[in-house]
């Protein structure tokens, strides 16, 4: 007899944890769309944010104060990266930019270590128990994380839809050369995007930190984001969201239903298998840019 209730429980757990993947992936997509750079340092930024936050709290800062200070730090960090690393490299081939962000991720990790030390910190948001709906167990923390991520995405969606900066961003994402020709100041757009990426890193860092503890392996969540990006397409925010959900669900379902026949532990790599399989069928991902063109 198939236990539907259990299946749904696993599925919901997977989708909710998938939201956290989406959050990391969105940070990538924003910067990729605006400047064609795959920002490998997104994970390091996330770590840096979480580490700064817990360290401030441990040193006696109140939660709101620590949050504001970390937010400010992340925005400054984002702007500084754009200004000192990426702007001078503008018009360079993508692989150069990628290598720059790869190097950058080590610099940020090193700086975090230097500033805040190497020990593991706990981060307790104070939401941990589960509750039951129609016999299905749901983690309150996962639900909270999903709600936070959801609101963040909604705010960004409104921002990109209705503000001039948002319109500039969409224009740059569509056609950078045309955006330049039209007179848009690309550095401003990039600065805005890096600010947003900093905010995403902060939210992601706190949520992931609360789940895994704040430690250096936190920066490895970028590796979790890669299959999400492959599935969703590197240039689609919707893709990042759906991709995250799909990866979360696949991981949990596979772990529970297929895992035992592999002796467990497939959660760590099954997403890559799914991503590879999709690559063979649809290289641009589920939602990746098939240029809007007349046929």
């Amino acid at each position, binding site marked *: 007899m198939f236990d539907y209730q259990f299946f749904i429980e696993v599925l919901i757990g997977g989708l909710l944890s998938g939201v956290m993947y989406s959050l990391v992936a969105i940070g990538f997509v924003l910067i990729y769309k605006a400047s064609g750079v795959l920002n490998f340092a997104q994970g390091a930024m996330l770590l840096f944010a979480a580490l700064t936050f817990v360290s401030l709290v441990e040193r006696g800062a109140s939660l709101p104060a620590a949050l504001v200070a970390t937010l400010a730090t992340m925005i400054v960090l984002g702007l500084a990266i754009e200004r000192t690393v990426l702007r001078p490299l503008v018009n360079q081939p993508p692989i150069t930019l990628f290598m720059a962000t790869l190097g950058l991720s080590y610099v940020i990790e090193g700086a975090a270590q230097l500033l805040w030390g190497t020990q593991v910190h706990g981060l307790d948001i104070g939401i941990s128990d589960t509750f039951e709906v129609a016999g299905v167990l749901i983690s309150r923390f996962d639900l909270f994380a999903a709600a936070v991520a959801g609101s963040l995405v909604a705010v960004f969606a409104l921002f990109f839809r209705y503000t001039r900066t948002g319109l500039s961003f969409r224009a740059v994402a*569509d056609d950078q050369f045309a955006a330049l020709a039209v*007179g848009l100041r690309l550095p401003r757009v990039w600065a805005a995007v890096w600010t947003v990426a900093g905010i995403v890193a902060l939210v992601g860092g706190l949520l992931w930190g609360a789940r895994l503890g704040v430690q250096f392996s936190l920066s490895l969540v970028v590796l979790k984001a890669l299959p999400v990006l492959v599935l969703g397409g590197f240039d689609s925010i919707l893709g990042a969201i759906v991709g995250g959900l799909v990866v979360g669900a696949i991981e949990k379902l596979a772990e529970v239903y297929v895992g035992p026949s592999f002796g467990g532990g497939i959660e760590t790599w099954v997403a890559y298998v799914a991503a590879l399989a999709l690559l063979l069928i649809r290289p641009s991902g589920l939602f990746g840019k098939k240029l*809007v063109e007349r046929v």
Partner: protein
Amino acid sequence: MSDILLSVEGLAATYNYVIRAVNEVSFAVRRGEIVALLGANGAGKSTTLQAISGLLPARRGQRAAGRIAFEDRDIASASPAKLVRSGIVPVLEGRHCFLSLTVEENLITGAIGREAKSRMIRTDLEEIYELFPRLKDHRRSISGLTSGGEQQMTAIGRALMSRPRLLVLDEPSMGLAPLVVEGIFRALKRLNRERGLSILVAEQNSTVALRFSDHAVVLENGHSVLSGASVALRNRDDIKALYLGGSLQTDSTKKVLTHAVA
């Protein structure tokens, strides 16, 4: 104030510091004038226009020599955004609309650079819809789904939203049916006559360009080899024969592809 709006003297440009695309180009655009830049594929028209608009670096190109002055001020190293704000506004070869934005959003992007107030944007939009009524019908359509002619109108309208003093168009006739080309040049002529807008337009289609322009400059292999009043050049068969065979159209589409890749 001299009546020369733009002057290009001894312009030379390279790509990747190696490939010489333009060797020695000189010409001027007077206030209120339409100047046509004529030449076959690869003659250096786009390179010249991109040098004027500050777009060469984005194409990995460099100005190697020469002087470009707008209203007697040297502008050779200004950024595209700055040039747009000072009134030199390009309409790119191949239109380059923002394909996933609506037609109206495309137009509005042209006003962001000069930080226009929302009310000003509305009145400017109405003027553009008056000039190109088809854009009004399609204002909510995604640009990528509109026709080539509509995209060319969108690109021109988007440039007009920056309130140009010199509109710099690169092959607006490319890939369009003769009737559509005619309509677009009529609109340009109207802007020129009614608002005194100065226009520099690169064209392979010499017949149309000579009909609507006041002066013309002919480029060949990166050199400006001939210039004069368009009326005079119109009657010279050698121009068509030597430089501008009408049969180059298929080549020009091939060219667009290589540009896109590069």
